[in-house]
């Protein structure tokens, strides 16, 4: 047994009383909890006959998050179809764009949740949606970082640019504030003016800073020189251009020149008369103490990290990141506050410990959507090869199976899960086989959809099971035609026999066939079972008889008995059917055929006689039977006479 990483949280189930003896059963996504009959010693309460369904994952029932599941399913399927044999160079942009698609779906979902949270009047709903928004925000933040570090795997130089974009995207409240300031009557006098300027500096948006500063400079003609100097510093800060011809070393030299220039300004006290400009200058210098003064504006340690890198180590290599991340977190958080789960997840990402990221996310989040999709994507990027689990197949498959099983418990999202199972090579099929049989089938339409899923995957056992359920239901509702159709589809011979039997009983009882449209159109499916064949052929006999094609009808009738297609119990009915044919004015059965009929009758009566003694059949019935046999014998004898005469006569 491995140790648990964190103590599992205790969830109280409301409505379950104290001192009750509970039993439970695990489901794929939830647990059933029930009270047992066991009575603990002491005062015993009454047993409540309730079963509680305890759901682990509430999100799956949120109508807005359903869109996330549906849209990401589409992206997931698209990802699986990317060809294995493409060179990895051409695959990388595809993976990055898929990662961006996933993120844009998260964003869209987040925006919708936010709108609903704002517009609702119900405080409880608002907080619930608010919580979901913050979870999605965190997910998107982590995903974006993983995209930069693992999927895009940017080299030194462009790495920082990507990280800067990452921070800018998730610290977007600056733009709100900036708009507010700029739309005010006198922006330079606005109380938040300097906050906005400094925030822009911290995010490295120096163009915006210069535009903002112009507004201040026009108001203070005396300090124009100082503002001009700052403007020059800002405009001269070099940025690495990954697409350009400049090498990283050249950039580094250029950057150092600029850095020295900033340093000189600090040494000269060029900005001593303006505390704001001095602060900016020190930030540009990359002074960690100054940055820590701006804690409120940075608001979190990873922003601090990126700003620190921007002004101190713009050519940071991926391998050096974890050092800076660790020291940033130490500097930024005081020793008393423990890092939150998000902090440790991000730190693990900076350390390039993918498995730790996935593990921590699995613990912190209440559903598998995020880890399953991220792991799948990383696996496609060939980043997870070395890792194997002690159980199941591999990490990717394990997480996908968990996620898909959760979907399958949902009354409506189960269809999505099928494609996830399809892309789990080792256990996906087994999972699907077990789950698909348990989908409740309310209508034939739904049954057909389930059947199509099974048939496409050659799951014959499940096809049989679904058809059998539908056939049984039709039978219970006395819909013999439907029941027969379903058992034919399942190629279920035993069941087809059972239903054919019912049809024949119906016929014996009522003298007419029901569901003629079906029986007349059996076609080759008639051969599924002997009894079905008999049913079809027997109906054919009636049809021939109805069309007055007596000779053919007679031949068919006889063959039904001689070829042993007809069950023995039905022979009497068949022989009775032969009566009107025997009574025709012209001989229809030939002499030979009549002998065969007589043989059949003989066999039948002898078997009846041996089996019958002592049976409690009423006298009346017995009489009827005897009369029938007598009649038949008479008719047979007459027909034989006619046939012999006819066959003996030479046609002239």
């Amino acid at each position, binding site marked *: 047994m491995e140790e648990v990483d964190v103590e599992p949280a205790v969830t109280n189930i409301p409505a379950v009383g104290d001192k009750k003896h509970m039993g439970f059963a695990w489901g794929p996504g939830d647990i059933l909890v029930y009270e047992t009959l066991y009575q603990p010693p002491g005062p015993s309460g009454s047993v409540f006959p309730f079963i509680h369904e305890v759901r682990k994952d509430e999100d799956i029932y949120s*109508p*807005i998050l*359903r*869109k996330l599941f*549906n*849209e990401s*399913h*589409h992206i997931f*399927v*698209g990802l699986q179809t990317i060809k294995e044999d493409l060179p990895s160079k051409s695959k990388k942009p595809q993976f990055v764009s898929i990662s961006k698609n996933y993120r844009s779906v998260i964003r869209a979902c987040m925006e919708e949740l936010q709108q609903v949270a704002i517009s609702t009047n119900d405080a409880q709903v608002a907080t619930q949606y608010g919580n979901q928004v913050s979870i999605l925000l965190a997910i998107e933040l982590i995903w974006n970082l993983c995209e930069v570090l693992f999927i895009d795997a940017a080299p030194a130089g462009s790495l920082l640019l990507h990280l800067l974009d990452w921070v800018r995207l998730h610290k977007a409240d600056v733009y709100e504030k900036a708009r507010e300031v700029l739309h005010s009557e006198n922006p330079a006098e606005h109380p938040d003016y300097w906050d906005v300027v400094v925030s822009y500096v911290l995010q490295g948006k120096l163009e915006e800073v210069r535009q903002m500063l112009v507004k201040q400079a026009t108001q203070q003609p005396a300090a124009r020189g100082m503002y001009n100097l700052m403007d020059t510093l800002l405009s001269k800060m070099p940025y690495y251009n990954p697409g350009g011809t400049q090498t990283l070393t050249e950039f580094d030299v250029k950057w150092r020149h600029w850095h020295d220039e900033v340093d000189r300004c600090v040494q000269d006290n060029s900005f001593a008369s303006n505390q704001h400009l001095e602060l900016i200058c020190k930030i540009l210098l990359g002074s960690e103490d100054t940055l820590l003064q701006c804690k409120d504006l940075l608001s979190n340690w990873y922003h601090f990290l990126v700003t620190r890198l921007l002004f101190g180590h713009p050519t940071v290599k991926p391998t050096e990141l974890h050092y800076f991340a660790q020291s940033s977190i130490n500097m930024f958080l005081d020793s008393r506050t423990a890092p939150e789960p998000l902090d440790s997840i991000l730190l693990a990402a900076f350390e390039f410990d993918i498995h730790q990221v996935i593990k921590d996310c699995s613990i912190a989040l209440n559903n598998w959507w995020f880890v399953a999709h991220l792991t799948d994507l990383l696996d496609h990027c060939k980043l997870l090869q070395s890792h194997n689990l002690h159980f199941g197949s591999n990490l990717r498959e394990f997480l996908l199976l968990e996620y898909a099983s959760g979907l399958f418990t949902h*009354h*409506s999202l189960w*269809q*999505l899960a099928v*494609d996830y199972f399809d892309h789990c090579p080792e256990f996906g099929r087994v999972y699907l086989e077990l789950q698909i049989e348990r989908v409740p089938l*309310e*209508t*034939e*339409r*739904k049954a*057909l*959809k389930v059947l*199509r899923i099974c048939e*496409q995957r050659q799951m014959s056992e499940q096809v049989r099971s679904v058809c059998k359920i539908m056939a049984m239901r039709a039978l*219970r*509702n*006395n*819909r*013999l*035609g*439907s029941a027969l*159709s379903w058992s*034919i589809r399942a190629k279920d011979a035993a069941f087809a026999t059972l239903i054919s039997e019912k049809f024949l009983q119906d016929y014996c009882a009522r003298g007419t066939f*029901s*569901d*003629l*449209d*079906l029986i007349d*159109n*059996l*076609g*080759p*499916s008639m051969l599924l079972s002997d009894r079905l064949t008999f049913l079809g052929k027997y109906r054919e006999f009636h049809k021939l008889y109805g069309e007055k094609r007596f000779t053919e009808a007679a031949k068919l009738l006889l063959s039904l008995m001689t070829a042993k297609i007809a069950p023995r119990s039905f022979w009497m009915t068949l022989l009775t059917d032969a009566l009107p044919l025997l009574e025709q004015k012209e001989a229809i059965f030939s002499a030979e055929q009549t002998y065969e009929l007589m043989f059949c009758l003989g066999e039948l009566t002898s078997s009846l006689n041996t089996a019958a003694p002592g049976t409690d059949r009423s006298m009346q019935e017995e009489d009827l039977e005897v009369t029938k046999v007598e009649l038949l014998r008479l008719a047979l004898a007459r027909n034989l006479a006619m046939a012999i005469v006819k066959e003996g006569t030479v046609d002239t």
Partner: protein
Amino acid sequence: MECINAKYVSQKISKTRWRPISYSSLQQPEIFATGSWDNEDNKISIWSVGTNGGSGLEDELEGDPQLLCEHKHDGDVLDLQFLDQDRIVTASSSGAVTIFRHHQNTQAMSISQHWARAHRYPCNNAPCTGVVCSSPEIVTVGEDGGIIVFRADHEGVIRVIENADSSTIHAVTYLRTTEILTVNSIGQLKLWDFRQQSNSPSQILSLSGDRVPLHCVDRHPNQQHIVATGGQDGMLCVWDVRQGNAPFSLMEAHSAEMWEVHFHPTNPDHLFTCSEDGSLLHWETSSHSDMPSFLQGGRNSSIISRSAMAPAGGNQSLISAWLSGDSSKGHLETTHMLPSQTLSVNSLDVLGQYLVCGTDGEAIFVNRQVPV
């Protein structure tokens, strides 16, 4: 594909229908209704794609369907038809048939008529699978194999044909005002003439031998004897009900169940089909082979079709393009209308240049530039 709008709606859509428009005014369709299935609470919803209707939010994309109103629906919506401008008839998996009224001034919906357990077994409900109406008459069919005729203004039932079919009837359409056509799960088409009192079909047509279940049927809008059906194997069949009892032509269309087939109501040389395999096809046949088709030109089109019969007697002057035979000579063009997707397209409806379809992927697609 730029004229296609997709919207995720958090419910699996089983039916989509445009609200009818009067052809005298050159109006574009604006309102459509959808029904959901397989949800804990199913709904029937009314949407608008109009530019002037709806809430008119600035950042909403133009043409993005806006929800106008919705109403709870008991059971899966298995079929849905507009009775007139503001009344909708639904067929439910609970066997009920319901008329909803859409109050356009207040954007609200209410139930105006409800026949509970219209389709039933002796001790169970039977899902009602299809409904067709020509106001005020409504005809429904069900898994119980029954056909029921209602009138919108009558509480009672006008006529019932019990056990009209030994298997499930999947769809129904009007052939003439007094004649309907049903398709069932053993591959038969049955014509019913309501002028006759007998409870048996006036004609049965079937696919020989195969017994492939048929799921949908539509009648040619101008030539009432031409009928298109789609079945479990995804084949499109065109029938001439006057001639023979076998289909006039069979065309391979989809790789799984075809859920709906629709002739274009005003331009019947165009036909649309959708399927469980997640595709939506646009079929175009042109009666003059030398006429250039707008569909030609490098689009993702696949032509797999064959004609099962030789062309019918050529002495008829007005012969539909669908019956003019030899489709292999390039008279028939098919185009995929949706970007690749894997989940079933359950329903489609086309009106003017507008097409709407709904999927099991919980998305509605609206195409506002159908090339017809």
